[in-house]
């Protein structure tokens, strides 16, 4: 082990890909903070306030083990994005800011039986049809506007509600984290304002870094695991990235406000008010958990509704050969009550995803030989990765992994660097079809605004948090 001083914290290198800020680094820390990163990523991480934010998380009541930064960690609000922290369910807290505004923002991967040659002649029209059929940005979805009764069923049942509308295939639920239905959900704990924001947003992508991407499997790293996931070189896939939309945003807003007000009652003081929290077992903690689970179910249903639309578009263009099967759907903004080391913990993953291994009971039966699929989207125009969860991750990161490349540049700097038109031309020159309603947003999401996803994935692969299975190359992007 070697010790150096970086930022204003003492840092110890545990391995070449793992650094630790000891609990003694700041008086109010309860546990160490560990960050998975190589030298290059570490240098980027030091460039913003990620470490300050991670250290702040290490001060929260009931936090246990270590708090973890994934290699895609970057500055967020309250918790850093790419942060993982576990709190004892018995006496620890739950923090809405530790989940984020986009509750159960997540990713799902669909695989077709098509090869590149079959899609290529129709790629442009398929991407165009997807962009016309799936509302993005702030657009609502008039085709799926819900009554209050229907919305409450979505909040309770998740994508299972959509089955009676013919929008769910038999294997879809089994290949969704928690079958898309978190049992702790209580629609009554979701405010009327949140329901008002979300009632017409089911089946919409939203904005920011959300997308639907048509891809091809262009490299296989682990043939056995790839076979287990039903993936092979040259195969067409579709990746969907979105979350709980305005409904989830409002749930977070409501409960940050509530917890900010009740913290004095529980004797909680914080280095950052966005970390507002309450004991998990308190009435406020239980209410937030129930509302968060309901918003998460909405997000699973949102990705399911988009899946249905994607399937319709592919069938229109390519017939039944374009059947799309769900590989997996994972959340990356969530708090889950899980067993770790014989103890019940509330694991917060903000910009981090589960990476459960073959022996975990929540790994779907179809993937018990391989491990849970871990889906890591790259930045727009770069490759995405499918990894497999490992049993070792349970002790190394509470069964967690990175969620993407991670931003490295502010939106304004990204726009100053190159225009949206230039980005579009560059992507099109590489054969990538792009649909984005705003040139400004295209520039904000430019590939150079993100870290190198390959480097991020290599770190988690070497660290044993998940192992590389295949790489996906983008062919068409519908930007939110």
């Amino acid at each position, binding site marked *: 082990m070697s010790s150096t001083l970086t930022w204003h914290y003492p840092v110890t290198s545990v391995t070449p890909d793992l650094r630790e800020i000891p609990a003694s680094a700041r008086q109010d820390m309860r546990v160490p903070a560990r960050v998975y990163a190589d030298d290059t990523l570490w240098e980027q991480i030091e460039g913003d306030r990620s470490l300050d934010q991670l250290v702040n998380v290490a001060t929260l009541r009931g936090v246990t083990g270590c708090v973890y930064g994934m290699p895609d960690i970057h500055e967020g609000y309250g918790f850093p994005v790419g942060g993982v922290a576990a709190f004892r369910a018995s006496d620890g807290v739950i923090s809405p*800011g530790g989940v*984020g505004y986009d509750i159960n923002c997540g990713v799902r991967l669909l695989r077709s039986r098509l090869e590149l040659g079959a899609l290529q002649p129709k790629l442009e029209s398929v991407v165009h049809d997807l962009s016309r059929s799936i509302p993005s940005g702030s657009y609502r979805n008039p085709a799926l506007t819900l009554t209050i009764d229907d919305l409450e069923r979505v909040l309770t049942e998740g994508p299972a509600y959509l089955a009676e509308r013919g929008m769910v295939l038999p294997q879809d639920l089994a290949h969704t984290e928690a079958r898309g239905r978190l049992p702790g959900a209580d629609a009554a704990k979701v405010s009327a304002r949140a329901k008002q924001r979300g009632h017409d947003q089911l089946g919409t992508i939203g904005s*920011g870094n959300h997308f639907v991407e048509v891809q091809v499997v262009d490299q296989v790293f682990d043939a056995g695991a790839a076979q287990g996931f039903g993936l092979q070189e040259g195969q067409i896939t579709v990746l969907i990235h979105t979350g709980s939309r*305005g409904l989830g*945003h409002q749930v977070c807003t409501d409960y940050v406000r509530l917890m900010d007000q009740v913290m004095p009652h529980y004797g909680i003081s914080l280095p*950052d*008010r966005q970390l507002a929290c309450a004991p998990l077992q308190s009435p406020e903690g239980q209410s937030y958990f129930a509302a968060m689970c309901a918003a998460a179910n909405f997000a699973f249903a949102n990705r399911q509704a988009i899946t249905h639309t994607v399937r319709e578009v592919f069938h229109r263009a390519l017939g039944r050969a374009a059947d799309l099967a769900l590989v997996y759907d994972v959340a990356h903004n969530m708090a889950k009550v899980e067993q770790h080391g014989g103890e019940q913990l509330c694991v917060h993953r903000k910009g981090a995803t589960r990476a459960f291994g073959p022996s975990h009971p929540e790994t779907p039966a179809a993937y018990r030989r391989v491990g849970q699929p871990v889906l890591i989207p790259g930045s727009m125009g770069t490759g995405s990765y499918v990894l497999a969860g490992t049993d070792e991750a349970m002790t190394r990161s509470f069964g967690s992994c990175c969620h993407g490349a991670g931003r490295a540049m502010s939106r304004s700097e990204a726009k100053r660097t190159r225009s949206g038109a230039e980005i579009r031309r560059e992507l099109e020159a590489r054969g990538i079809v792009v649909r984005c309603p705003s040139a400004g947003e295209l520039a904000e999401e430019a590939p150079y605004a993100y870290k190198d996803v390959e480097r991020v994935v290599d770190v988690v692969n070497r660290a044993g948090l998940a192992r590389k299975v295949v790489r996906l190359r983008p062919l068409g992007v519908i930007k939110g």
Partner: protein
Amino acid sequence: MTTMLFPRYREQQPGAGMAGTCPPATHEFLAHTSEMQLLVHAATFPELFAEAGHALGLLSLRDIPDVPTGEWREIEVESADRVALLVDWLNELIFLAETERWVGIEFEVRETGARWIIARARGVSVEEPPAVVKAATMHQARISHRDGAIEAEVLFDV
């Protein structure tokens, strides 16, 4: 009761507020890796809240002309303290933009205290707001006095 018109329209509304004695309220967005960090300067709290609301409106509208139309509407917000009030005020405007497709751009703060604000506003009705602002956060939210002016920071999740 304090009545302050948003500085941008002060020349069109002579005699209102403290025009002529203080520099106009200003705002800028600071660099942040993933979100948008708003910094506002103003001479008074009513100006501060009006300028923050205006900045949010501009962020939401992107390239749409920010010329307010239609009737004034009343907006009232209560909160735990002044910093939370600023965050809640902005979250109220975000809620209206998303649910009513109405982006507030011109604000007249009629009354404000440490825990409440009564304002009226005019805005732009849009079919779809060009930019989605998810929320105003409490992260590093602050209001402080500096060089005789009031300075505030709020981070938006975008």
